[in-house]
């Protein structure tokens, strides 16, 4: 089971990860980060297949796919 970590200092809420996630496992959270943006979060645990495309397409190195439990940096 994969989960994702978001570096909230770096994430700009651009949605590229969510838009390009093949199984649409990500959506943008309602809440604001300190930077004033909506960060992505896993929509339903278990949908993520660990393909890492989000990592590759995130322009801000803000997302990490991991098999460990998620922590916000």
């Amino acid at each position: 089971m994969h989960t994702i970590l978001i570096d909230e200092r770096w994430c700009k809420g651009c949605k590229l990860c969510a838009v390009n996630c093949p199984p649409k496992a990500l959506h943008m959270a309602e809440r604001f980060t300190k930077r004033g943006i909506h960060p992505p979060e896993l929509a339903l645990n278990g949908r993520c297949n660990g393909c890492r495309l989000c990592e590759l397409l995130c322009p801000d190195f803000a997302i990490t796919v991991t098999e460990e439990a998620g922590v916000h940096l």
Partner: protein
Amino acid sequence: MRQEIRICGFGGQGVITGAVILGKAAAVYDGKIACQTQSYGPEARGGAASAMVVIADGPIGYPGVHAADVLVAMSQEAFTRYAREVKPECIIIVDPDTVFSWDIPHIVHPVRSTKIAEELGNIVVANIVMLGALTALSKVVSREAILAATLASVPARFKELNRSALEAGLEAGTGQAA
């Protein structure tokens, strides 16, 4: 009389546009002398941005803000940085969705400009909401002037949206002023 107004927040929130419209309202429609300046980092898009307007009856020397008469803050970072440079009687307006804490000895007027704008259908008019609130609360410019300046500054197809935003802001501000 010299009045100093600062509008600040993230880059992208339209703080500069807001200040430009304010200055235009004063200079072109209220017939005053006005001077608008700004400061931003290379991170214009996302970093801290601050726009200043000085309004006066005669020539404006130093164009910057020494101590604001009016402060509009749309991000925590900007608030923290600029809330220090205000007059004791400064009118302070913040968006409580982006400025979380305002522990200072001033009356702070919270105006949910982002939310109001989102409700009006476009987050980009949050700055116009703030202009409305500012006009209602501070009277640095007339209502007629700010409306005229706003409408003159936006493309035709956005005029109605902006008028609504301004009115919503005026309303929110008037409520606060009470």
